[in-house]
């Protein structure tokens, strides 16, 4: 008896996030090509989110296959972002999926040490990608029937692509 899909999933980790981010990106491309614009944006949002989370937890010192949990890692990261000196606007609603805040957390935490700080232009680009995705994507998109405009598809795709292309440098 083959194991079911859910049972075949590996524990959540940096490696899993990075690999699935690329898969969801390509899934999104296929959907966009078939005219399913909102579905494409829906998957790209997650691709951006996972890329940023993987980058943060890698910076944080987790190994590629270390287990990532909500109480052990996600929530402490959110709390760190909300607190001074980062003071990131991070509402409770959908906090774990807030791509804008995850991008700001990554840029902010890197800026805390001279050795890890991004250059000014790169920092603006990382923050900008998080902002671009966040303006058009929520995990709650799945509950809605609206069809995205073409320029919205392009906007989210370009931001997600940038994050994926630069994931080794994040």
């Amino acid at each position, binding site marked *: 008896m083959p194991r079911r899909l859910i049972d075949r999933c590996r524990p959540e980790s940096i490696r899993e996030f990075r690999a699935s981010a690329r898969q969801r990106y390509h899934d999104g491309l296929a959907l966009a090509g078939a005219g399913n614009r909102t579905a494409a944006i829906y998957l790209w949002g997650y691709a951006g989110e996972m890329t940023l989370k993987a980058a943060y937890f890698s910076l944080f010192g987790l190994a590629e296959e270390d287990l990532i949990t909500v109480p052990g890692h996600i929530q402490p990261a959110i709390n760190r972002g909300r607190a001074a000196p980062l003071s990131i606007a991070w509402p409770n609603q959908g906090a774990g999926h807030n791509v804008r805040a995850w991008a700001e957390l990554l840029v902010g935490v890197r800026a805390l040490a001279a050795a890890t*700080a991004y250059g000014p232009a790169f920092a603006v680009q990382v923050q900008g990608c998080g902002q671009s995705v966040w303006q058009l994507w929520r995990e709650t998109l799945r509950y809605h029937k609206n069809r995205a405009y073409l320029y919205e598809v392009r906007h989210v795709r370009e931001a997600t692509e940038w994050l994926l292309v630069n994931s080794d440098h994040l």
Partner: protein
Amino acid sequence: MPRKRRGFEEPPRRTVGHLAERLVDELKSDRQSGQPMIEEEEFPTKKLRVNVIWDEWERVPLEDRTATILRAYEQAEGGDYRDRIALASGLTIPEAHAAGMLPYQVIAAVRQTDPVTAEQCRRALIEEGASILFGEDQPQLRFSTEEDADAARKRLAERLPNSEPVWVVTKEVGTVEDWAQR
């Protein structure tokens, strides 16, 4: 088939000219009250985190808010200072409030026997920098710290004669749901 090579082009960041100019004026004037509220936090690396809380951002996309802030800093403080800014974010007061960043509020507790009217207090709150994005009839004057709220309370008492007993500083502790999700 043709083979095309393109370098990655950084997308142009739009700035909102009139807001950038107003922000430059704010950065140079160092006013004690009103919007925008500009909050800077310096890291040990000398990098800066800048939050500009301003209702004028309401219809401005997030990236454009960041670009506008960076441009204003460049004009007011120079390129080197701009490059120290690691994170620049623009938020409206309702957005900052929703994120739990402005828990202190100055309210007017007006009684019928007080020598000032609710309308006078409403106008004074707006002059002091209250947001009307929550509703024109319910301006909200909010702050991140108790010290800032208390300073605003004192300014309001000076701005509106005989109003000193009316102004009260409150602190929001959040909803039960907020606490449950923490």
